[in-house]
């Protein structure tokens, strides 16, 4: 075992040459490649970071939009709910007003029907009363209703004499139906006794209650059956009020 110093020198030279060659063909290309790839990776990472940041920003924007939309949706829903509630209240109020109006109309209609019915009943009652009175007077006393009314008025003329101021020049007798001539003559004679020289004229008014209205100047004296009819109406009202509630509803 010996050391060949020539070989040692050659090997040192070979080693140094190998160092240079490997530096030239191995280390530098590999290290440069690694550095370049690291730079590229770093660039890509930076780009990825920028893209990620942009994506995060966009995500934040979309989330903000979603939140705004949700808030707007909630506001819209609340507004719609309030509008629906308001419309419901208005519809209920309108329905109540309509019901009240219809109830009032029905009440007014019922009152009008009752009033018309009462008027009709009163008219019918009056006609019946008149007819019965006429018939009773004719059958029992052989007199007419008008003659009895005029006779009653003539009998009560002196009671109103103090209400006449001076002697009236004109007098007007208003009846529902024309008076017979003999009755007119009797009324004219009685007026001449109370106010001599007074001119008496006769008029008819079918709308008036049966009886006699006598105008003496500024004084008017009525002898009609209105009081009797009012008593009859009171009786009818009492009779209707005494009816059972169910009967009244059925009638209404």
């Amino acid at each position: 075992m010996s050391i060949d110093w020539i070989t040692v020198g050659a090997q040192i030279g070979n080693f140094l040459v190998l160092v240079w060659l490997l530096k030239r063909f191995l280390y530098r290309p590999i290290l440069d490649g690694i550095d370049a790839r690291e730079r590229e990776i770093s660039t890509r990472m930076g780009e990825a970071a920028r893209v990620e940041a942009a994506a995060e920003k966009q995500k934040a924007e979309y989330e903000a939009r979603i939140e705004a939309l949700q808030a707007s949706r909630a506001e819209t829903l609340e507004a719609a709910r309030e509008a629906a509630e308001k419309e419901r209240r208005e519809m209920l109020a309108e329905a109540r007003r309509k019901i009240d109006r219809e109830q009032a109309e029905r009440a007014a209609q019922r009152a009008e029907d009752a009033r018309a019915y009462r008027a009709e009943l009163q008219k019918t009652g009056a006609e019946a009363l008149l007819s019965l009175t006429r018939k009773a007077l004719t059958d029992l006393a052989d007199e007419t209703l008008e003659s009895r009314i005029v006779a009653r008025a003539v009998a009560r003329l002196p009671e109103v004499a103090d209400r006449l101021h001076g002697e009236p020049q004109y007098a007007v007798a208003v009846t529902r139906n024309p008076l017979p001539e003999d009755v007119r003559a009797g009324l004219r004679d009685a007026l001449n006794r109370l106010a001599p020289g007074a001119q008496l004229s006769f008029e008819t008014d079918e709308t008036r209650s049966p009886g006699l209205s006598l105008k003496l100047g500024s004084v008017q004296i009525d002898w009609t059956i209105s009081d009797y009819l009012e008593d009859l109406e009171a009786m009818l009202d009492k009779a209707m009020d005494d009816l059972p509630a169910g009967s009244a509803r059925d009638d209404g």
Partner: protein
Amino acid sequence: MQLTPDDTIVFTILGIGINATVVNTWIIMALLVGASALVTRRLRPDVPPSRWRTALEVIVSGIVGQIAEVTQRRDPRILYFVGTLFLFIVTANLLMVVPGFDTPTASLSTTVALSISVLVAVPVFGIGSRGLGGYLKTYAEPSIIMLPFNVVSEASRGVSLAIRLYGNIMSGAVIAAILLSIAPFFFPVVMDMLGLLTGVIQAYIFAVLATVYISSATAVSDAADDNKDIPHD
């Protein structure tokens, strides 16, 4: 029994005999440089690395990592030197299994040459980092009394490196030769496999020791230039 390829003259140039150690070293150099040039040609960062390029990157990155662990810095100059040491030794040791190939590391001349290279590289790196005065002053530390001991220690490093590598490789070759004569069909295979493992380990140890020596020579400068990377030259 022939123990060293230095004695095998392959051819002669101008009267100088070129022995098998040198020729086989050239073969290893051609293999390393050729493979490197073949793999690293037309490197483009935008092209995905090939399988071979990835393998080379793994090897180079591993060496860089090992050097960085020892020296605590990334110095390309150390990589060029130590990396070449490792690649050369490991390739030579792996080629030991090729029949008829006398590995150069089985020659004491080669291991001495590599040790001398390390012994020269240590002061070169130390002077490069600390300056001539700063480097020479390390021999007188911690006291001037230590100067002869430090010189002897430095010299013994080279001898130690050379003998260790040569002894390990040669011992494997000798043992393989002895076992081959005893049991020619069984032991050579086992010994070759063991020799491969030993060769890789020896290459690693040689490179790490070289790195440690260089690192210790540049330690003061490292402290001053902590975390300062030297750029590629």
